[in-house]
């Protein structure tokens, strides 16, 4: 399989992985801006250290997961990956956005 065929797979996989990564809070690392400190995986800082930032970690978790999925896809025969509908590259991100809006709705209902 040509490596370019792995690109749409990466997009699809990232969109699928990102939502549970964010929802279940599974960052590769946590940044605590007030302390300028980085911690591996999830770190719940004590109140004195200020808020923790998980967003960077979520993106990296999803990127690594998507890279693994894309790599595994390159091992499949060309005919198999060609059968994957190209529309999933926009449909999966769209579905992810809809779920994210649902998850975030408490912010807008307060």
């Amino acid at each position: 399989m040509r490596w370019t065929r792995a690109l749409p797979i990466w997009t699809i996989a990232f969109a699928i992985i990102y939502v549970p990564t964010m929802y279940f809070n599974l960052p590769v690392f946590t940044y605590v801006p007030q302390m300028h400190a980085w911690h591996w995986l999830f770190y719940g800082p004590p109140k004195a250290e200020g808020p923790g930032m998980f967003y960077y970690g979520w993106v990296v978790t999803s990127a690594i997961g998507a890279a693994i999925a894309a790599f595994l896809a390159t091992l499949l025969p060309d005919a198999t990956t060609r059968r994957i509908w190209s529309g999933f590259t926009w449909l999966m991100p769209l579905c992810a956005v809809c779920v994210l809006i649902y998850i975030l709705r408490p912010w807008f209902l307060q």
Partner: protein
Amino acid sequence: MPALLIVHMLLAVALIGAVTHQSLGAIAPADRPASFFARYRAVKGEGYVNAIIVLYLVTATLGLIIYPNYRIGARLFMEQLHDFKRVGSFELKEHLIAIGFCMLPAYWWAWQPAQKDYAQTRRALTIGLGLIVWYAFLIGHILNNTQGIS
């Protein structure tokens, strides 16, 4: 930090211009530039792809550098004001930027000459990216007006 914020905004303006040109060109391509609007749409979308990807990545990276200031500054200020809708709007913005980031490889792939058969996918990815960029720009601008980063 204000200088970074201004550069971030200027790059976002360039990105919004490029992605809007390309989106309109993809939705309603114009062969003959008979009017201003037709000229706006009569662009070769292929020529915008790399520029849009680079602008997106650089703008997002600058946003990531500025983000901690927002997290321990403007956001806490808005939470104290119980302005949760604005906080939620920014939460959505950060997730949309991540989703836009994940769309970039497929977007690049869909605009390659070898993928001429995937016009609908190409159009949908371009429009999706355009909507994300517009949302992020407007929300960033509105929130900066609430309390600028200093």
